């Protein structure tokens, strides 16, 4: 009955050093996992803790030596942030810009990905390679030319792109477009062709097949792409700081407003950072399941 501990038969009892099935990891694995994950959680959460705790401190606490705990718990910064800078206006601007960029980007990506996934046509390879390679270009490369192009379009047609929300929306939606198209192609490819062919047989047009069959089947991928597009637009700094004016300023630029010549209202900066982060973080954590599913089918093949 008592078999030696070094046996390799899966049914035999084992000592910790003996080979294990994937269901029963060895102790060395469990310990290293515990240590690594604890340190990593600390690293990840440290700024989050600083953000939350500092947003509840009086100004004195954040201008003098750092304190782990507030000397006096206050929610005053959460009221002040709206007064110090017009945060609500920036919020609305960011919502409009990121929302519109997301909707447009996803719609356009769905059409393009459907064409690439389901049709064979001349220039298909050129299109996919070109779209993908725009991913590698530094944003700084586009900044000045786009500035000049938008100004010229404005001069020629009277459509104000520079400084307007429309210009920013137009710019942002193309930032997420290549990645979205790429991911959706992969996702659409994983939807069995027989499904939309059956819809065609049943009398749907190609667009009917797209919207009644392919899109519903690819919802996780589409949600993932939408999350990505929204986050890209919500977090962009470079174009937001050059291409906006007092009226169209977004949160990315607005948060810099808490620094005066003499002082930085760090407690307000932290409170405002938290407030602007909550919508995206909450949305992201709710939808992260889709993002992982979308990446599995799309980007990682």
């Amino acid at each position: 009955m008592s078999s030696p501990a070094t046996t390799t038969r899966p049914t035999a009892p084992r000592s910790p050093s003996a080979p294990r099935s994937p269901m029963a990891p060895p102790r060395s694995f469990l310990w290293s996992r515990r240590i690594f994950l604890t340190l990593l959680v600390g690293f990840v959460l440290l700024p989050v803790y600083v953000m939350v705790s500092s947003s509840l401190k009086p100004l004195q606490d954040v201008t003098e030596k750092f304190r782990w705990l507030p000397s006096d718990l206050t929610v005053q910064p959460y009221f002040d942030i709206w007064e110090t800078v017009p945060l609500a206006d920036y919020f609305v601007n960011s919502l409009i810009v990121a929302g519109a960029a997301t909707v447009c980007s996803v719609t356009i990506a769905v059409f393009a990905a459907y064409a690439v996934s389901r049709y064979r046509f001349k220039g298909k390879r050129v299109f996919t390679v070109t779209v993908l390679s725009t991913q590698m270009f530094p944003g700084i490369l586009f900044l000045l030319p786009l500035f000049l192009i938008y100004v010229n379009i404005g001069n020629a047609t009277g459509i104000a792109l520079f400084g307007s929300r429309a210009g920013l929306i137009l710019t942002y939606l193309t930032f997420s477009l290549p990645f979205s198209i790429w991911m959706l192609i992969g996702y659409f490819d994983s939807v069995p062709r027989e499904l939309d062919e059956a819809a065609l047989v049943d009398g749907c047009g190609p667009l009917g097949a797209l919207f009644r069959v392919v899109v519903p089947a690819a919802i996780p991928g589409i949600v993932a792409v939408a999350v990505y597009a929204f986050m890209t637009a919500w977090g962009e700094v470079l174009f937001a700081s050059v291409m906006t004016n007092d009226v169209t300023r977004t949160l990315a630029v607005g948060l810099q407003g808490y620094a005066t010549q003499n002082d930085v209202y760090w407690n307000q900066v932290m409170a405002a950072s938290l407030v602007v982060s909550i919508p995206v973080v909450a949305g992201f954590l709710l939808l992260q399941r889709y993002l992982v599913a979308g990446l599995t089918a799309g980007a990682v093949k």
Partner: protein
Amino acid sequence: MTVTAPEETGTRAAKTDGPGAARGARPPGRIRRIGLPYLLLLPALLLEILVHLLPIVTGIFMSFKELSQFYLRDWGAAPWRGLDNYSVTVDFDAPIGAALLHSFAITCAFTVLSVGLCWLLGTTAAVYLQETFRGRGVLRALFLVPYALPVYAAVITWAFMFQRDNGLVNHVLHDQLGLTDSPTFWLIGDNSFVALLVVSVWKGWPFAFLIVMAGLQNIPRDMYEAAAIDGAGMWQQIRRITLPSLRPVNQVLVLVLFLWTFNDFNTPYVLFGKSAPESADLISIHIYQSSFATWDFGTGSAMSVLLLLFLLVVTGLYLLVTNRGRKTADV
């Protein structure tokens, strides 16, 4: 022209008595068959041309011009400079070229370190989270927080933590642990490189984690079971099955991380402002600074074009070496 053409003809014949017979008002088949893919691509194509291709062409054109602020409104009238902008840029003995070379070297070192650390943290975390255990779902969500936080909110928090007099980092290192003789400057001087690296890794590793986690789901379960029956332990399974299976995923991941890190503007801009300290003068900030501080957009454009060429060559070589070129083009 299209693969679906034969099927569609069959479709049309079959549908006369199908449910589709009721709706007659559809566009003529010929236009639909030949033009449809192009029609579907049109919006994406137009936007790509307007916001990506046109600016690149314009940027290349600009790099041959003398583009000071006087010519900004009417840049067509700017005088032609030929290759002068380029010769200034690559004259590494003169101040402009020397500064560019320095910034390029800093960016390369920074990118290699940041991508390496992001990959290491992301892969390790994903492998440790591969098995189910209590709290795994919570950890998975927590680890994605840095990725989800808007760049400016997260980086501004790090900027606060790195403050010399009222930051957490100095408080811990100096006041609590006594590791430094005096409070350190983190956002100016040589330490800025370290500060930037920490922030970049903090922000970037969850993406590696996400991708590797997605890649792990594609490894068939029975490979592990077979290995376990053959007597392979946990560590051996990781080394022999998990890591080799991740190879194709890693090739894409490293390339994407490289491009994003190399081109990153947001992190240094929020951390340091318009001009980064010399030790952390990443190329994006450097080009931005040399364009806007001196209003010399011609030279700035020349730098951008050179950067683009460099990225094209590196990416091309990488795709060749990893043999992903064919696969990527086949998407």
